[in-house]
């Protein structure tokens, strides 16, 4: 069987497929829950971008840290956070990751190494540098991974963080998910170079790494090399993953700005479909593939029901954890 014994292997491939399926299912369910008005506020889905989350997370080790953006459901799930915890937070219920205090844009689970999801563009790149600095200072081998979109490459914090990470040789990996649109505007209309991250790498003495972000194998292999470099003390990497979001920027966006046929072209390169075919190509039995899909739907339905049944956060939470003493007192 072609490639059967390649560097990735069946077990890792099944794991990456499982992650992509679970993220796809969970994001679709999040959208359904919007339509039922059970998810409030806003939400930014990663439909179409699942291969990046799966490929990166599968290359991470326990103890490595993830720093996400408001489009962070996928990366949070990929680190092993249960669906119920994610959907519960989207539904702002007491069973959510942060008991409804953060919401969709701020998913955090330190026990899974998810060190926050940041909703101010670019803010978390320097923060990831700081976490990497701590690892370097304490002689630890963990690596910080920072995810962001193409639009982030035009904000100052991106450039400050890259320069900073290089001069301090920090164990941090910057992963740009280039889905071609910042919010509604094509990134190409507002960026001086064709590849918003990759073409900036040279300015910081880094290799230009632009990869197919819809192929989890490609993402996984690229990240393995970046992790090796980071753990060897050779400094940061900047990886631009080309991808496409199947839905709009956020809940409010029907994505009418996309030219006719563009979505259809990208759907042919749907990462979940690509990977399903890949598994078959490597001789993995259809039954094993189908079992992953069935299990994902089963877990998702259980999680959804648990969230619907969960209470809203208690009113006492309104004023907890403003300060480290657990309260909010600003005066005596």
């Amino acid at each position, binding site marked *: 069987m072609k490639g059967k014994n390649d560097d990735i292997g069946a077990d890792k491939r099944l794991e990456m497929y499982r992650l992509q399926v679970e993220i796809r299912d969970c994001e679709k369910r999040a959208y359904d829950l919007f339509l039922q008005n059970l998810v409030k506020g806003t939400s930014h889905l990663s439909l179409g971008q699942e291969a990046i989350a799966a490929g990166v997370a599968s290359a991470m080790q326990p103890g490595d*840290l993830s720093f996400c953006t408001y489009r962070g459901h996928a990366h949070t799930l990929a680190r092993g956070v249960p669906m119920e915890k994610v959907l519960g937070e989207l539904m702002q219920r007491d069973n959510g*990751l*942060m*008991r409804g*205090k*953060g919401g969709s844009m*701020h998913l*955090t*689970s*330190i026990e899974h190494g998810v*060190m*926050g999801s*940041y909703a*101010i563009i*670019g*803010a*978390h*790149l*320097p*923060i*990831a*540098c*700081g*976490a*990497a*600095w*701590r*690892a370097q*200072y*304490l002689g630890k081998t963990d690596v*910080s991974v920072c995810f962001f979109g193409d639009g982030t490459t035009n904000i*100052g*914090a991106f450039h*400050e*963080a890259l*320069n*900073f990470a290089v*001069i*301090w040789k920090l164990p941090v990996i910057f992963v740009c998910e280039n889905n071609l649109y910042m919010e509604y505007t094509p990134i190409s209309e507002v960026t001086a170079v064709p590849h918003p991250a990759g073409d900036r790498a040279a300015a910081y003495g880094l290799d230009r790494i632009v990869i197919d972000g819809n192929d989890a194998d490609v993402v996984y292999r690229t990240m393995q090399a970046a992790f090796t470099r980071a753990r060897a003390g050779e400094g940061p990497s900047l990886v631009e993953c080309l991808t496409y979001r199947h839905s709009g920027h956020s809940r409010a966006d029907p994505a009418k700005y996309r030219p006719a046929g563009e979505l259809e072209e990208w759907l042919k390169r749907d990462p979940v479909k690509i990977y399903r075919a890949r598994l078959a190509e490597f001789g993995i039995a259809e039954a094993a593939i189908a079992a992953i899909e069935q299990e994902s739907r089963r877990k998702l339905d259980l999680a959804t029901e648990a969230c619907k049944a969960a209470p809203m956060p208690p009113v006492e*939470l309104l004023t*907890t*954890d*403003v*300060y*480290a003493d*657990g309260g*909010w*007192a*600003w*005066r*005596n």
Partner: protein
Amino acid sequence: MAELTYRDAVARGIAQEMERDERVVFLGEDVAKAGGVFKATVGLYERFGPLRVRDTPISEQAILGAAMGAAMTGLRPIAEIMFADFAAVCFDYIANEFPKLRYMTNGQLGCPLVVRTGNGGGARFGAQHSQSIENWTMMIPGLKVVAPSSPLDVVGLMAAAVRDDNPVIFHEHKSLYAMKGEVPDGEIVDSLGTAKILRPGKDATILALAMMVPRALEAAEALAAQHGIDCEVIDVRSLVPLDTQTILTSVVKTGRLFTVEENPRLCGWGAEIASIAADEVFWDLDGPIVRITTPHIPLPAADHLEDLAIPNAARIAERVSRVMNGSQR
């Protein structure tokens, strides 16, 4: 006991904490090899080495972001923002990131760090290097905010800030760096959230912060000598937490409240305290609450103009005496 300058007290306070706790690290522009543009961190690089005392590029967002990332994963960073005015280019961290992390994550993460910054005027630096920004930081839930007025308080409040598990904005006053004061030997640890009565008095309460403290004390002496008005001068020291007990107890005793603020007029820290006093001790007041502030203008560079803008002892004394004698203005 040694006489130290306010600038030397900064280095002493940081050194005390770095000596005690290896998790304490220090970063900023020109802070290491050069010892800081105000020479407030001289000797730290030589004493604690290049891994703990680090020069950074002119990248205020990277400085504060890196401090935050280190803080939330186990270090106790001290970051310098050279001039307080530059807080505006990294305000995302001060307004959105540090103070909301613990709340948004339901207590999963915290941000125990100190941002030191050179605040305030009097050095003829013009509008973009002279502002008093303490009120910018006071208004944000989740931050603690202190502004010492003496070398002793610099050392003690620095220690308290570094040991605190919250993000603390530490406003040093640029025009106080040369001030000298007695500082006892040995470890000094103060507490955040405590005001200090520096001059007891019975007729009026004057609240001041940072450089306004020595000016208020000077005014109080003049008021006593020339007008027989006995003022109680309180160094507020900590805007968040705010020691309202000490402040309101004094106001109840004297029946009169004046604030002396270097920040421009609107939304200065004294406005908040005035509103608290009006809410809670109104019936103990014998006259209007009066705020003596820098006018609502950018600061000019020319020395005689800057001196006109920032409250000084003569203006404080003149205003207090007129109000105490029944004038509304």
